[in-house]
């Protein structure tokens, strides 16, 4: 059987490229955790269930928030649910995450976050003191980000119908005139800037679950990014595109950009900041930090001439690990590749499966 005519490597690569160009297809009969992980299965689910039913808002702009025009003014509108387990872990809590996550989804669209809603699904048996602490965390996070939580809802479900506490937040932000962020603005030669070190959040949550025979001093990076985004846009108004690297990590976000822009993202492995403890833990656990979730880190694309200005603007607002980590190229088209320190290269695909379920 091995003797029959075999495709060449090039033929196989072209066949795969053609298959991938047709987009993700959902062929599963049952939802698995992978469908919620932010990788390929999530994309297939959104595409073939939700977009199929609700319609596609704007083909080029499936961003973290919708951009809406009201009486000539532009608003951004977003929503997100938080189901992280445990509900409190080093560096953050589910309440803090629920505020920061929605603030960040608005900020990376170029919006100034203003108002948030908060809806709670509570499992019976949760201590009121815990709920009060979560509410206090949310208030503190809202205060820090300069947003107001203005409406909400509460539901309680029987034991087993939820896991302690789920929170859904929605947010509205105002987009100042003149801001044009989007994958369509990205050009070959542009540089990629990262606001901080990666993979802290996912590992912090995993460690907090206590089922690893491994301990390390790793805390979630959960933080509001709106002030950093404003500092970046003030320093580099021609910033092309931004996205916070949450579920699926930097690798998945870079792939979303590659697909939306048709250009390739080439990352320099040695330039990507990863804390030593985080890198060590990832090596031990067989995880690639590129796919581990962040909650206070975003990727931005800026014109090459402004890359260092962008990095320095982020460093000045306290994001001291901000770095220029790669560039956009036209050839090869539409992929993400990592170049390592000794000249080796590898492809970075969208994440498959879910190494760390319920991370946010």
């Amino acid at each position, binding site marked *: *059987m091995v003797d029959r005519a075999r495709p060449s490597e090039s033929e196989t690569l072209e066949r795969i490229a053609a298959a991938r160009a047709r987009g993700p297809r959902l062929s599963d009969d049952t939802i698995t955790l992978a469908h919620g992980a932010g990788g390929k299965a999530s994309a297939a689910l959104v595409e073939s269930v939700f977009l199929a039913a609700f319609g596609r808002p704007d083909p080029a702009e499936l961003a973290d928030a919708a951009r809406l025009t009201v009486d000539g003014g532009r608003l951004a509108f977003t929503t997100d649910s938080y189901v992280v387990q445990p509900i409190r872990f080093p560096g953050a809590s589910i309440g803090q995450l629920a505020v920061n996550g929605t603030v960040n989804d608005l900020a990376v669209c170029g919006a100034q976050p203003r108002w948030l809603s908060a809806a709670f699904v509570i499992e019976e048996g949760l201590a009121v003191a815990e709920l009060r602490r979560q509410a206090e965390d949310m208030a503190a996070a809202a205060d820090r980000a300069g947003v107001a939580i203005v409406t909400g809802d509460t539901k309680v479900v029987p034991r087993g119908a939820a896991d302690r506490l789920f929170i859904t937040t929605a947010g509205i932000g105002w987009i100042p005139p003149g801001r044009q962020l989007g994958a369509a603005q990205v050009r070959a030669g542009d540089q990629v800037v990262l606001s901080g070190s990666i993979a802290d959040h996912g590992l912090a949550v995993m460690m907090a679950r206590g089922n690893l025979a491994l301990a390390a001093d790793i805390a979630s990076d959960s933080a509001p990014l709106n002030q950093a985004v404003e500092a970046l846009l003030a320093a580099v108004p021609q910033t092309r595109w931004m996205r916070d690297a949450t579920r699926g990590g930097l690798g998945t976000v870079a792939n979303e950009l590659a697909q939306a822009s048709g250009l390739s993202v080439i990352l320099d492995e040695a330039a990507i900041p990863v804390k030593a403890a985080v890198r060590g833990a990832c090596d031990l656990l067989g995880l690639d930090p590129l796919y581990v979730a962040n909650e206070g880190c975003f990727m931005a694309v800026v014109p090459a001439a402004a890359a260092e200005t962008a990095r320095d603007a982020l460093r000045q607002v306290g994001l001291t690990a901000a770095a220029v980590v790669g560039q956009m190229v036209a050839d090869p088209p539409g992929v993400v590749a990592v170049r390592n320190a000794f*000249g*080796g*290269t*590898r492809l970075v695909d969208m994440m498959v499966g879910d190494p760390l379920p319920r991370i946010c």
Partner: protein
Amino acid sequence: MKFVDEFRDPAAAKQLLAAIADLTAADPERAYRFMEICGGHTHTIYRHGLEHLLPPQVEFVHGPGCPVCVIPMGRVDDAVWLARRPGVVFTTFGDMMRVPGSAGSLLQAQAEGADVRFVYSPLDALKIARDQPEREVVFFAVGFETTAPSTAVTLARAAALGLTNFSVFCNHVLIEPPLRAILDSPQRRLDGFIGPGHVATVTGSDHFHFIPDEYGLPIVVTGFEPLDILQAVDMLLTQYRQGRCQVENQYARVVRPQGNPAALQLLAEVFTVRDSFEWRGLGWIPASGYRLSEAYADFDAERRFPLPGRRVADPPACECGAVLRGQLKPWQCQVFGSACTPEKPIGTCMVSPEGACAAYYNFGRMHRAAARAVALGGAARSGPVGTATRPA
């Protein structure tokens, strides 16, 4: 992680690449096919883009040493059957969850209500058994001599604790029999081996003398960092240059010639070698797998539960067997990347990060020219890796 950084040092890599280029330059017509036995090596090769850094005369052939890849479908079906059994907590390494059986994977069984939990160590499974004495906890043990000792330690501890709700579904396998099967195959075209560093930690590097002695091929027992693999290629080529054919130990910082006697002793107590074990793609190989010894029979899931034990043929389209024997490159398989992808795998080689197909699909799926353009792109701009070039 200073210990790791030393083995990813760009300057040292460049020196080794220059030495390798020098060793192959003498005779450009002479090609070398080196089989890396371990899936861990395959992963490192693609993860760090090593294939594209080497001269075209040096080719890596991917070997059978991916523990997930060699598990036949019937054993996966048995695992799914165990996981679906009421009262059972089925514990497994994460990789195994997505391996397709003939009626779905453990991940699908979990989505449909089975209590499947992924663990990083069999000791985690033991802890679940201690914490939940009302549940039957089964551990899905897979792997070569590398992971068998941790299963053995766990079983010894379970016996000492007198646990009655813990058992092991044993699929541990041995490295020597499949290597002999490959070496005995009339289709073999190999020039040497990048030897299994982790297995050799247990068995010792001396265990591999049969390869030069009986088959006349060199082997270098090798670590798992990119520099380890480049150094192993350099050592293999140097053996050819100097007319030697030996077992060499590149991984001497970890591997001893005699291995780990305490681990070997424990393996001999806890396990006995099966008459025969089925390997995916390689078929039944005599004396190639472990089962639990009589002393540990009470912990043997195969004796404790009436497993279906059906033998299931691989899907007709699947060519994992030829890939595991090093006869096919991943991209030569008829279904690679179309019907068989990491998100919808048909074969095991597409599931595990150590599987050749998954490693190639996820990391290596690039034209050599494109990969070089990306690598050299770094030379054109100033930056932290601005000096990345390939030796002439």
